[in-house]
C-alpha cells in the first residue's frame, strides 16, 4: 500500500468535537499507513477562510481530500477544480450540494436534536417552559440542531413553550452568562438544551452558579461534559461519533484511492447518553475526552 | 576673535571643538565650537537654522555628535543621554516646550525625582517643593494645575522652574523668553544673576538683541552650522554682532507710517464677549492699517483673535467686514470673508507637521489648485511654494522637505506663507516673530508694511512693545479681557503699560491657574 497524502479540511479546529474527529483521522492514518493533515477555521462563520484552506490544500496536490463544508454551495468551484485534477473528495460531517464527493460520512444533526427534544419532553413531563442555548445562528450544524429540536417540540409537545433561543458562539463563558440571564428572567424554567459542547457546558455552569435545578440536555461529549452527566448536573446529552467520522473519512478516502466502491452516505450515528448508560461498551466507545 | 582675557581665567566648564552633526539631507553643524566659563552668561546667537539648538542638544545628551571633542569641567566627556547630562550637572530649557500636558505643574517639575515615602509618592512635598520654586521666581502659579490648561507663557515658566530645580552647574536656556512679557523677563534675569553669582555657567540663546546686551558677558555667533566668533558683549556694538550673524550689514530703517485715517474700514468688532476672557471688546481696522494689539500675558488678545476668526465660540458681539455684518462661526467662515489668522502656537495650531513645506503653504488655498475631478495642480502649487520660499527666505532644502524638520523660525515663515498665498484682506498675526531671528524679523516687518501698503488690514498681537511700536499705526491695549484704550502710533511704552495694567477697580487680581 502506498503512503497516501490525505488533506482534511474541517469546519473547526480547536473545539473538542473537531479534535475528536482529528483523533479518529489520525488513528485511521496510523492503521492504514497513510499521512493525514487536518485544519479548520476559527469559527463556523468563516466560509471564505475555509475556501482559502481548501485552495491551499489543492495546491499541495494531495492524493485525496476530506472536506466538511461550512456552506454547501460556496466550495463547488474548488471541488470542481479538485475533480478535474483527479483528486477524490470525501465529504464529512455534513454534505455538499454536489455529486463530486464520493461519499459523505455524517451525523443527521436534525434527527439527533429531535432525539434531544424527546428526552427533554419526557424528563419535564411534557409541559412547561424551556430554552435553547445554541452555538451558532447561521452555520449548518447550528441551524439543524436548533430547528431539529424546535420542530420536534412544536409537533410533539404542544404544552411545552420555548421561551428563549440565544446564541453563545460555543464560548463556554458567554453561554454561562446567557444561561444565567435566561434562568433569572424565567424562574419557572424547566429545561435548557445546549446545542454543542461549549454551549452545553456553559448551560450546566450557569445552572450550577445559580443553584438551579433546571433539566439540562447537552450535545457532544468531552471530559467535562461526561463528568457533568455523571454527577447529574446535566441530565444527559446526545453524542455523535466524531472519532468514527474522522476514522471513516480517512478509510473511505483510502478505499477510493484503491478503486473500491463506496456507499453514497456513511451514517456515523448518534446516541443519547446519561449517567446510567454511559458505561455501556457501545456508548463508551463513541464518547471522547 | 576668541575672547580670551589675559588674567588667570577660571578653567572652563564646557569646551566643545570641531563638532559636526548631520541629519538626513541637512548638515546642521560643521566644525562648531563653544566654550563656557563658570559664572558667565554666554549668549549663543545666529539666524534661524544656524544650529544653536542642535549644538546644545549635543551638549545635553539628546543628540550624539558625528565628530569633534567635548570637555566637561576640564576632562574629556561623553554624554550619551539626557540622564547622563543631568548627572553631569547640565540642565536645559528646550526651545520647543517639553512638558507633559496631562500632568500638573509640580509633577512636571519633579518628573523622575518624585519625593517618596515608603515608595509612595509624597504629593504634599512635591507641591510644596514646586511652590517654593515658584515663590523664588516670584511666580503666582498653583503647583497642582494641569499644564494643559496653562498659556504658553505659563508653560514656559514651568519649564524654567523645572530647569532651576535641578541646580545644575551648566544651565542652557534655548529661547526662554520667547513667550514672556517684560515683567517675567525681568524676573528671569534676576534669577540668572543669582545663579551667576553662585558660579553657574549659563548658555543663553535668544533672538532679542536687547536681552543679549542686558545680561550676557560674552557672545558666540554661529552661521550655517559653523563657528563665526566669540566677542565680549559689553564692548561689541549690536550692529557688529548682527553682521557676524547674517554675514552682511542689515538696514532696518524706521518705517514711514502713511496716514490711513480716511481709508475705508475693513474689519469692525462690536461688543465681543466670551466669558471672563473677553468683555465688551470693540475696535476697527482700516484698509492699509496695522493695528497693534498689546497687553500683558493672559490679557485676552489671543482669545479675541480666535473669537473673530471663529476658532472659538463667541457669546456675543457683531463682526463687520467691509461694512457688512457677517456670520462667523467657524474658521472656514472667517477665511471665506477674507480673514486669515496666524496662531501663536505654530506647532499645535499652525503646521501640519507631517506634510511637506509645499503642502503646508498651499493648505489654505487647495481649492484654488483643484482642477476637474478634484485633481491637484502640483506644478502650480510648487511654483507658489517656491515663490514664497524665495520671498520669505525660508531655509529648506526644497519645497518637499517635511515641515517638522525645519527650524522653529522657518516653520513660522511657512505659516506666514500659507496666509499670504491665501491672499486674505484682513490678517491677524498672533506673535508673528516669536522665535524668529533679527534678519528674518526685519524681513517680516517689511513684509507686514508691504502688505499694509497693498491695502490689507492687519492686526498684530505682540508681547514685545518695541515691535508693536515699530509696526503699528494705532495700538489697542487690553487688560483682563477688556479693551482699555486705543493709542496713536507714536505713543510711548509708558502709555501702553499704563493701559495694560488698568485693572477694573472692582475686580480682584485673578488667581493664577
Amino acid at each position: 500500500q502506498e503512503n497516501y497524502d490525505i488533506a482534511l479540511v474541517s469546519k473547526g479546529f480547536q473545539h473538542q468535537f473537531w479534535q475528536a474527529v482529528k483523533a479518529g483521522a489520525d488513528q485511521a492514518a496510523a492503521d492504514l499507513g497513510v499521512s493525514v493533515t487536518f485544519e479548520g477555521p476559527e469559527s463556523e462563520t468563516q466560509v471564505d477562510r475555509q475556501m482559502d484552506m481548501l485552495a491551499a490544500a489543492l495546491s499541495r496536490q494531495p492524493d485525496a481530500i476530506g472536506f466538511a463544508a461550512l456552506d454547501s454551495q460556496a466550495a463547488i468551484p474548488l471541488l470542481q477544480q479538485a475533480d478535474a485534477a483527479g483528486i477524490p473528495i470525501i465529504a464529512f460531517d455534513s454534505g455538499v450540494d454536489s455529486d463530486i464527493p464520493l461519499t459523505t460520512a455524517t451525523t443527521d444533526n436534525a434527527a439527533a436534536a429531535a432525539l434531544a427534544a424527546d428526552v427533554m419532553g419526557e424528563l419535564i413531563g411534557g409541559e412547561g417552559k424551556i430554552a435553547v442555548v445554541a452555538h451558532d445562528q447561521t452555520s449548518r450544524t447550528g441551524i439543524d440542531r436548533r430547528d431539529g429540536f424546535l420542530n420536534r417540540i412544536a409537533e410533539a409537545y404542544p404544552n411545552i413553550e420555548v421561551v428563549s433561543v440565544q446564541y453563545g458562539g460555543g464560548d463556554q463563558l458567554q453561554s454561562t452568562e446567557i444561561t444565567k440571564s435566561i434562568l433569572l428572567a424565567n424562574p419557572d424554567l424547566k429545561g435548557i438544551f445546549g446545542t454543542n459542547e461549549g454551549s452545553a457546558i456553559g448551560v450546566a455552569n450557569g445552572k450550577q452558579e445559580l443553584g438551579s435545578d433546571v433539566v439540562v440536555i447537552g450535545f457532544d461529549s468531552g471530559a467535562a461534559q461526561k463528568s457533568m452527566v455523571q454527577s447529574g448536573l446535566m441530565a444527559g446529552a446526545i453524542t455523535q461519533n466524531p472519532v468514527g467520522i474522522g476514522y471513516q473519512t480517512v478509510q473511505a478516502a483510502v478505499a477510493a484511492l484503491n478503486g473500491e466502491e463506496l456507499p453514497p452516505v456513511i451514517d456515523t450515528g448518534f446516541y443519547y447518553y446519561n449517567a446510567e448508560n454511559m458505561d455501556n461498551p457501545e456508548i463508551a466507545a463513541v464518547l471522547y475526552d | 576673535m576668541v575672547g580670551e582675557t589675559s588674567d588667570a581665567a577660571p578653567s572652563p566648564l564646557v569646551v566643545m571643538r570641531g563638532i559636526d552633526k548631520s541629519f538626513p539631507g541637512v548638515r546642521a553643524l560643521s566644525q562648531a565650537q563653544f566654550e563656557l566659563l563658570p559664572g558667565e552668561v554666554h549668549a549663543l546667537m545666529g539666524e534661524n537654522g544656524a544650529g544653536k539648538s542642535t549644538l546644545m542638544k549635543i551638549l545635553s545628551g539628546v543628540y550624539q555628535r558625528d565628530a569633534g571633542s567635548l570637555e566637561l569641567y576640564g576632562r574629556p566627556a561623553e554624554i550619551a543621554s539626557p540622564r547622563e547630562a543631568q548627572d553631569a550637572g547640565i540642565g536645559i530649557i528646550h526651545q520647543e516646550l517639553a512638558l507633559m500636558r496631562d500632568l500638573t505643574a509640580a509633577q512636571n517639575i519633579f518628573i523622575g525625582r518624585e519625593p517618596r515615602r515608603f515608595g509612595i509618592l509624597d504629593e504634599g512635598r512635591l507641591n510644596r517643593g514646586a511652590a517654593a520654586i515658584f515663590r523664588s521666581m516670584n511666580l503666582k502659579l498653583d503647583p497642582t494645575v494641569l499644564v494643559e490648561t496653562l498659556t504658553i507663557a505659563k508653560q514656559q515658566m514651568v519649564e524654567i522652574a523645572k530647569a532651576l530645580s535641578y541646580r545644575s552647574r551648566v544651565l542652557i536656556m534655548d529661547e526662554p523668553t520667547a513667550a514672556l512679557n517684560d515683567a517675567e523677563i525681568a524676573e528671569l534675569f534676576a534669577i540668572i544673576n543669582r545663579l551667576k553669582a553662585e558660579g553657574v555657567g549659563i548658555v543663553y540663546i535668544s533672538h532679542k538683541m536687547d536681552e543679549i546686551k542686558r545680561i550676557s558677558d560674552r557672545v558666540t555667533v554661529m552661521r550655517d552650522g559653523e563657528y563665526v566668533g566669540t566677542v565680549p558683549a559689553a564692548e561689541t556694538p549690536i550692529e557688529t554682532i548682527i553682521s557676524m550673524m547674517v554675514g552682511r550689514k542689515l538696514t532696518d530703517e524706521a518705517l514711514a507710517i502713511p496716514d490711513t485715517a480716511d481709508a475705508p474700514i475693513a474689519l469692525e468688532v462690536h461688543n465681543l464677549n466670551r466669558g471672563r476672557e473677553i468683555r465688551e471688546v470693540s475696535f476697527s481696522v482700516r484698509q492699509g492699517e496695522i493695528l497693534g494689539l498689546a497687553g500683558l500675558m493672559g490679557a485676552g488678545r489671543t482669545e479675541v483673535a480666535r473669537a473673530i476668526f471663529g476658532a472659538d465660540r463667541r457669546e456675543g458681539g457683531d463682526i463687520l467686514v467691509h461694512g457688512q455684518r457677517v456670520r462667523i462661526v467657524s474658521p472656514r467662515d472667517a477665511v471665506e470673508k477674507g480673514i486669515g489668522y496666524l496662531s501663536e502656537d505654530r506647532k499645535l495650531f499652525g503646521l501640519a507637521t507631517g506634510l511637506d513645506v509645499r503642502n503646508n503653504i498651499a493648505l489654505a488655498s487647495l481649492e484654488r489648485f483643484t482642477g476637474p475631478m478634484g485633481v491637484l495642480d502640483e506644478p502650480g502649487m510648487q511654483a507658489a511654494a517656491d515663490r514664497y520660499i524665495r520671498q520669505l527666505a525660508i531655509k529648506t532644502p526644497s519645497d518637499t522637505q517635511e515641515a517638522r524638520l525645519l527650524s522653529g523660525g522657518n516653520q513660522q515663515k511657512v505659516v506666514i506663507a500659507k496666509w499670504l498665498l491665501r491672499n486674505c484682506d484682513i490678517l491677524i498675526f498672533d506673535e508673528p516673530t516669536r522665535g524668529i531671528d533679527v534678519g528674518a524679523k526685519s524681513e517680516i516687518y517689511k513684509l507686514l508694511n508691504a502688505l499694509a501698503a497693498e491695502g490689507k488690514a492687519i492686526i498684530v498681537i505682540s508681547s514685545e512693545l518695541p515691535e508693536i511700536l515699530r509696526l503699528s499705526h494705532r495700538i489697542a491695549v487690553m487688560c483682563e479681557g477688556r479693551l482699555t484704550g486705543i493709542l496713536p502710533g507714536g505713543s510711548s511704552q509708558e502709555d501702553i503699560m499704563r493701559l495694560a495694567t488698568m485693572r477694573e477697580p472692582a475686580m480682584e487680581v485673578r488667581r493664577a491657574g
Partner: protein
Amino acid sequence: MTDATAPAQKSGIRITGAFHRLLAFSGLLALVVVFSLASPNFMQTQNILAILQATSVNGVLAIAATLVIITGGIDLSVGTLMTFCAVIAGVVLTYWGMPMPLGILAAILAGTASGLVSGVVIAKLKVPPFIATLGMMLILKGLSLVISGTRPIYFNDTPGFTQLSQGSIVGALVPAMPIPNGVLILFAVALLTAFVLGKTALGRYTFALGSNEEAVRLSGINVDRWKIAVYAVAGAICGVAGLLIASRLNSAQPALGQGYELDAIAAVVIGGTSLSGGRGTVLGTLIGALIISVLANGLRILSVAQEWQTVVTGTIIILAVYADILRRRKL
C-alpha cells in the same frame, strides 16, 4: 514651606473631579433604571450578582488594558494572554500536580513574562504597540493550544480551585450577600491598580509616557524601562484574569480568548480613558465594564432577539460615549 492657597485650590479641583466621576455613573444608572422598569427580574439580588460575576473577567482585563492605554499604547493580547495563563495554571496544577499557590504564582508569572516580552518588543525594537500585541495575541493563542495539547485542562484534582472565583467569603460571613470571590478579586485588582496609578512612581510615569514620551525622555528618565514595566504589570493582571476564568470554568479552555480584547478596550474607552493616552481612571474602566455587562444581561432578561441585541449594544456604546462627551463639554 507650605503655600497657604494651594491646598484649598486643590480640594476645589478634587470636588469637581469627584462630581465629574459621579456623573460618569449616569449612563450606567440610566441603563439600570430602564431595565429595572422593563423587567421585575432585573433588580433581583441573584441577577445583580450574576451581572457582577459576568463583569469580573472582562473588568480585570479592562484594567490591564487601561494601564497600557494610558501610556498611549494598546494591548490586543489581553484575551489570549488570559487563556495562556489559565493553561499554564492547568499545566502546573493538573499535569504536574503541584499545590494551588504554585499554580496561582505560575499563572501570574506567565502573564508578567509575556507582558515583559511585549514591552521589550515595543520599547526596545520600537515596534508599534498595535503590531507587537497583535503578534503576541497570535503567538499566545498558538502556544496555548500547543502547551495544552489542544485539549481543555480540568482542575478536578485541585479541590478549592473553583472556590477562587465562585466561592464566597463574604457570603460565609453575611449570608444575605453571597458576593462571589471573583467580584472581590476584581475590586481588589481595581483598588490596587488605582493605588499604583495614583500613588507610585510607576503610575506617574504611566501618565507621563502617554502625555509626552519625548518630554519624559528629555527629563532623563529611562523611558524603555518604565514602559516595559507597565506592560509587565498589565500582563500580571491578565494572569489574574486567567485564574478567574479558569476557576469559573473549572478548566483552562485553550481555544478561548480571542475577541475578548475588544470588549476590554471598549470598557476602557466607555470609561472615559482616551486612546491617545495621558488620561484615564480605573473607576471609569469599572463603570465601562459594568455598562457592557448590564447591557448584555438586561437585553437577555428582556429576551430581545440576539441580532437586535447586537444592534442595541452597538448603538448604546456610541451613545454612552457621546453622552460623556456632551457632559464634559458642559463642565
